[in-house]
């Protein structure tokens, strides 16, 4: 859960992530682009978890919106105690992502604190949704007017 204190710049008291075996989450590249693939890794010490998953949420800080399709991806063990996975981001207009690791250890789910990663920009320069501005519809509309004018003109000639 997001710390309310953290929102207003005060020292956040995180109820999760303290004293837990989940280490620091690493995201590479450090400032990934929207729609790119990021590699997420985390060390987990102590008892071997039966399941490790990562939740990746994409948000747009300019419009103040978080997208509903949170990715929940399994993290396989890749080396001694490091769990790693690749996640491809979905939203061209996302400006940051939040990453949270959840693990199942001895039948109980534990979660890490949330890591926020700012995105560097879109790889294709596309700014995403145009908030309902007509594009395709406008073209169809203009073609319809054009066609109807041609029909009228032809009728007049006859």
């Amino acid at each position: 859960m997001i710390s309310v204190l953290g929102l207003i710049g005060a020292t956040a008291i995180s109820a999760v992530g303290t004293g837990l075996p989940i280490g620091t989450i690493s995201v590479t590249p450090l400032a990934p682009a929207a729609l790119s693939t990021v590699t997420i890794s985390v060390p987990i010490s102590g008892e071997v978890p039966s399941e490790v998953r990562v939740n990746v949420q994409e948000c747009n800080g300019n419009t103040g919106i978080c997208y509903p399709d949170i990715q929940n991806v399994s993290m396989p063990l890749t080396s001694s105690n490091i769990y790693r996975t690749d996640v491809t981001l979905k939203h061209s207009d996302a400006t940051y992502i939040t990453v949270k690791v959840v693990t199942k250890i001895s039948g109980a789910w534990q979660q890490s604190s949330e890591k926020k990663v700012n995105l560097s920009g879109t790889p294709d320069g596309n700014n995403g949704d145009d908030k309902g501005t007509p594009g395709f519809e406008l073209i169809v509309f203009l073609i319809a007017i054009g066609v109807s004018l041609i029909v009228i003109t032809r009728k007049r000639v006859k």
Partner: protein
Amino acid sequence: MMISVGKKLGFLLNIFLIIFISIFSGCTEEKNNTGDDFSFTTLEGEMKRLSDFYGKVVVLDCMAVNCQPCMYQLFELKKISQNYSSTEVAIISIDVWVSNGENASMLQQLINDFKNQVNLTLDWTFGVDDEEGSIESRYATQGVPSLYIYDKNGNIYYSHVGYEDYTVLASKIDEALREK
């Protein structure tokens, strides 16, 4: 004579095409002006409906616990709560990310955190969507927060996807309050 009939036919065809294409190509106003009813469960476990709030201007905040902009939005909604009478304006915040694993206890924890960590009492109606995500699928498909202002008759007066600050919301509420 033939030209006159042709003119009339052409004119009618033209009007028909313009109306037809406008309707079916999506050039209609995005805002849904016909408010509809829905139910939700409050944090107290009570089933409520939007229609229970008819007669007041309603601010519907489709939000989630694990959403930073939604937290900022709560600060703006608090200003509405402080500056408008609850007899005139009702605020409803509904956690619509049940499908993402959120639940009533997480929402209650968030409210407690606001109280304990920043001494802010979120004193309006809070609820959660159902397991099927009925409210999310109708009102928050693009993301959270998704905000709606209903007039006193339950019609959607204003909608916005994403964080919105107090001044904008207040001006829309004022307009909705002036509506007959």
